[in-house]
C-alpha cells in the first residue's frame, strides 16, 4: 500500500477517467439533474455516500462470500441486490431520523439504485484490485478510496455542469439544441478540457 497508488487513484478517478465525462457512468442523472445547482449538489452528496458505502459492502461480499465458495459469477446479482437493499435501508433511516433531510435528499435515493456509477464502481474495484482470485495488497483501502474519488469526480462534473446550465438559462440557445443536446455538447467540451490531465506521470 503506497501513497503513489492513492495519488494515482485520485487523479485518474477525478480527472483523467472522470466517472461521467470519461466512463459515462451516471450519465442519466448527470443530464437530468444538472440543470440547477441545488439538486445537483444534493444528488452528488447522496451518490458519494452510496458509492463509498456500497464499495465497502460489496468488497466484503466478494471477498468473504463469493470468492471462498467459487460463486464469483453471482457477482452482478449479489452486488445489485446489496446496492438496492442498502439504498432502501438508507431511505428508511433518513425518513425516520430527519424528515427535513428526507425532503432534501430522499427523492433522489431510489434513483441512485440504478445509477450506473454505483454498480460500475463496485465492479471496477473488483476488476482493478483483485488479481487471479486473490486480493491485491491494500485492496480494501484502494477500493474505498476509489469510491470516494469517483464520488468527488461526479460532484465536480455535476457542479461545473449545473453552473454552466444555470447561466445558459438566460441565453437564447437554438431551439432544437435546448436542454439535452446542448448538455451533451457542453459535456463534450468539458471532456476535451479534462484531457489536459492525461498522461500524468509522477
Amino acid at each position, binding site marked *: 500500500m503506497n501513497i503513489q497508488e492513492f495519488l494515482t487513484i485520485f487523479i485518474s478517478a477525478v480527472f483523467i477517467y472522470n466517472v461521467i465525462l470519461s466512463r459515462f457512468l451516471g450519465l*442519466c442523472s448527470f443530464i437530468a439533474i444538472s440543470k440547477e445547482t441545488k439538486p445537483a449538489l444534493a444528488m452528488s452528496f447522496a451518490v458519494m455516500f452510496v458509492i463509498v458505502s456500497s464499495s465497502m459492502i460489496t468488497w466484503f461480499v466478494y471477498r468473504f462470500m463469493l470468492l471462498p465458495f467459487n460463486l464469483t459469477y453471482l457477482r*452482478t*446479482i449479489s452486488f445489485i441486490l446489496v446496492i438496492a437493499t442498502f439504498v432502501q435501508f438508507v431511505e428508511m433511516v433518513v425518513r425516520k431520523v430527519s424528515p427535513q433531510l428526507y425532503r432534501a435528499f430522499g427523492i433522489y435515493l431510489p434513483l441512485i439504485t440504478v*445509477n450506473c456509477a454505483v454498480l460500475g464502481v463496485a465492479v471496477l474495484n473488483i476488476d482493478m484490485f483483485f488479481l487471479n482470485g486473490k486480493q491485491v495488497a491494500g485492496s480494501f483501502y484502494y477500493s474505498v478510496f476509489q469510491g470516494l474519488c469517483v464520488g468527488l469526480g461526479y460532484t465536480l462534473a455535476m457542479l461545473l455542469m449545473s453552473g454552466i446550465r444555470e447561466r445558459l438559462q438566460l441565453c437564447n440557445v437554438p431551439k432544437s439544441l435546448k436542454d*439535452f443536446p446542448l448538455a451533451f455538447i457542453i459535456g463534450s467540451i468539458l*471532456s476535451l478540457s479534462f484531457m489536459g490531465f492525461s498522461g500524468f506521470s509522477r
Partner: protein
Amino acid sequence: MKNLVKEFTKGIIKENPTFILVLGLCPTLAVSVSVANGIGMGIAATFVLLGSSAIVALVRDFIPDKIRIPCYIVIIATFVTIAELCMKAYSPVLDRALGIYVPLIVVNCIVLGRAEAFACKNSMARSFFDGLGMGLGFTLALILISGIREFLGSGQILGHALIKGFEPIFVFGMPSGALLVIGLLLGFFNLLKNRKA
C-alpha cells in the same frame, strides 16, 4: 396480431429508447467506439430485454407492489448473468471489449424502464414484442452512433477501410467525441421533430 406488430415497431422509431426516450445512455456512449461492439452490446441488451420483459409480464400478478423494483432487478440480473456467462464462454473478445458495461446492463434504464412502464401492466405476448422492438431500436441506435464514430475516428467500418487516404479524426474515438455525436444527433432529431409539428 396487428396490436403486437404495433408494439414491435414503436420501439424502433416513434419511441426509440435512445433518441426519443433518452434512456440507457451510459453503455451507448461507452461501447459505440466500433460497430462490432455496438452490435454485440445491442444483441446482449435485447436478449436481456426480451427475457426480463417476458418474465416480468408473466409473474406480474404475483409480485407485491412494495417490493416490485427489487424483484424486477433480480429477474433482470439473472438474465444479465446468463448473458455475461454466455459471452465469456463463446465470445471472450467481445466480453473483454465491452468490459464492465455488460454487468451494467442490469441498471440500464431501458431494461428497468420497460419493466416498470410496460411489462408489469401488459400480457406476456405484448411485453415480448415490446422488448423486441425496444431492443432492436436500441441496437439500431447503437449501430448509427458507432458507425459515425468508427468511420470518422478511424476511417473504417467493421474493420474495413472505406475511403482511401481519409485522415481519421481521432477525437471521435474518445469520450469527448461520443458526447459530441450524441448531442448533435439528438439536436438533429429534435429539429426533425420540430419541423413536423
